[in-house]
């Protein structure tokens, strides 16, 4: 930056950084530094802090007429509730392949989207599904059942009604 021609300096005594260059570099680094800092902070913007969906925990009472192994799907929920001699259990109806809602039937569950099928215990028998249907936590509250569609329990977990 300095205007006059300087005598050649040795490697051991380099030209000091001129004051304006220093100020300029400081300004640029402050500018880009703060921009970078702010941008990294803003990367969190698209990540939902609170998931806007209704509670996955709900209360039901099983219909009296439910026979052993017959599926009861509470209205508006994607869980099938069963009752047999071992007790009550709930199996998620969301296909582990791509999230379609499987249809419970006497031979297990069928997925309409890509043809996955699952056994009566939710284990995968065919199609593209990578895993069996997860079992959901069931608990008793008086005469009612509490189903938690967010809590997975090991397959075979049944609750005595």
């Amino acid at each position, binding site marked *: 930056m300095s205007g006059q021609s300087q005598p050649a300096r040795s490697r051991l005594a380099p030209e000091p950084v001129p004051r304006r260059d220093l100020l300029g570099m400081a300004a640029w680094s402050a500018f880009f530094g703060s921009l970078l800092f702010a941008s990294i902070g803003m990367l969190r913007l*698209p*990540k*939902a802090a609170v*998931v*806007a*969906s209704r509670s996955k925990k709900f209360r039901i009472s099983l219909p009296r007429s439910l026979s052993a192994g017959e599926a009861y799907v509470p209205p*508006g*929920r*994607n869980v099938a509730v069963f009752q047999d001699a071992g007790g009550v259990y709930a199996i998620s109806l969301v296909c582990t*392949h*791509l*999230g*379609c*809602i499987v249809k419970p039937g006497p031979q297990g569950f*069928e*997925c*309409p*989207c*890509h*043809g996955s099928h699952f056994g009566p215990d939710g*284990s*995968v*028998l*065919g*199609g*593209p*599904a*990578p*895993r069996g249907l997860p079992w959901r936590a069931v608990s008793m509250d008086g005469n009612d059942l509490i189903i938690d569609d967010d809590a997975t329990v090991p397959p075979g977990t049944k609750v005595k009604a």
Partner: protein
Amino acid sequence: MSTTHGDRTALRDLWNNLRAAPRRIAAAAFRTGAPVTDRARSSFVFGNVFLHIHPVRTHRWSLRWTTTLGLGVAAAAAFIITLVTGVLLMFYYKPYPDVAYHSIKDIHYVVPTGRFIRNLHRWAANVMVIAVLAHMARVFYTAAYRPPREFNWLIGLALLVVTLALSFTGYLLPWDQLAYWAITIGANIAQSPRELTDALGITHVFDPGGFLRELLLGSDTVGEEALIRFYVLHVMILPLALLALLAVHFWRIRKDGGLARPADADQRLGNAAGISPVFTAGPVKTYHLAAVVEGRTPAVGQGPENTVPSMPHLFIAECAVLMLTVFICLALSLVSDAPLKELANPNVPENPAKAPWYFLGLQELVSYSALAGGMIVPGIVVLGLGLIPFLDREHAGSGTWFGGPGGGRLVLGSAVFGLAAVLAVEAFAIRFGWLRQWYAHMPQPVITAINPGTVIALIYAVYSLRVVKHYASARAGAVALFTCFVCGFVVLTVIGVHFRGPNWAFYWSPAEWPGH
């Protein structure tokens, strides 16, 4: 102005100026007069902000209709139609669940000309996807991606991805059954890396699938957050990205020396008969015979490098393609209405739930493995397409259809092989099922690695490597691979569109679907 004549002169001047105003406004806007000379034609192009993205002169090879088939211009024209109709639809569309569905219904049944505008938007989007794909095939088969045009090939690839993303995000907006379940499937494809992380038991520490899905949906289900995200992407972020890429794409055509043409284009074109005069109206130079030479005479009466003024030759061609594209979109919109199914129901999936037709080839692959069909195979295809100009550093056949070693016969042979391979693998998988049907406890990573999608891709890759060896040419291998993938795309798309019914089962015709 002298003071002795007083106010009258000033008033007369004012009157004359007022009368001259329209002429002067026109002259101020268009600095040159009517473009009757080549010089005026040139300045007509470079003096206009909207036209100056064109070259002033265009090579005659670029104007042959078989050079490009007008596909790039058709894609751009279709984009302009979607832009105009899309902005009009925004006046009535409300991006909120259920309300969105009713606003689309209003557009369809209540808003004056609303149905037509929506049809036009939908058909132009389809035409755009077809034109973009065909345009890419044209550039590939004429080897127009070669240096110095490699970067523009990459920009074009990015434009293809943005075009498909625009279609996909637009698909959710009507909030009907079709939209809801197509997006549910799409979002779960984004989550499909869990196929591997679950099998390895590391999902709780490393979950790229869950992260991607949540980024896309802003929630754990397709709901209001997902709708507003897709809306913002569809009407703002992706169109702006597309416009920016398009500007670079167009600009680079000029900066890369116009369209690719064969080295002997001038000889093949012959003399410039029947085109507008070039340079001046009358000759200002005379020539005399200085020597008798063999070969062609000097290019008397022709522009440099066998070019013609873009105004009007290039613009006439572009306007013709624009008109044809508009006509096709208008005709389709009059004949066929954009579909609208029932209101989205998160508890009952559409059966069969089908994505837009150009994604149904992928959906067919996804029906064997979500990760392989939805991410790995498409990822390899995009990566492979991007690498083509950097692997093929040859020169033979640039700018001619099916140029390079092998030529049209190689394309035909590869098409036969590609069709046979995809049909054989699909027929086998449809008839006998796949690993999970035979061994229910097969570990998922094995199925992710070995499924019809990866098997077809592998067969194609091996075939094209053999072609590379046989012709000792990377270009020949690229032609074989590209042709195979085109065949695979077409066959899988047809299977997905026509031969898949409820539960994604195979039916010879939709008429055989069980009633529902």
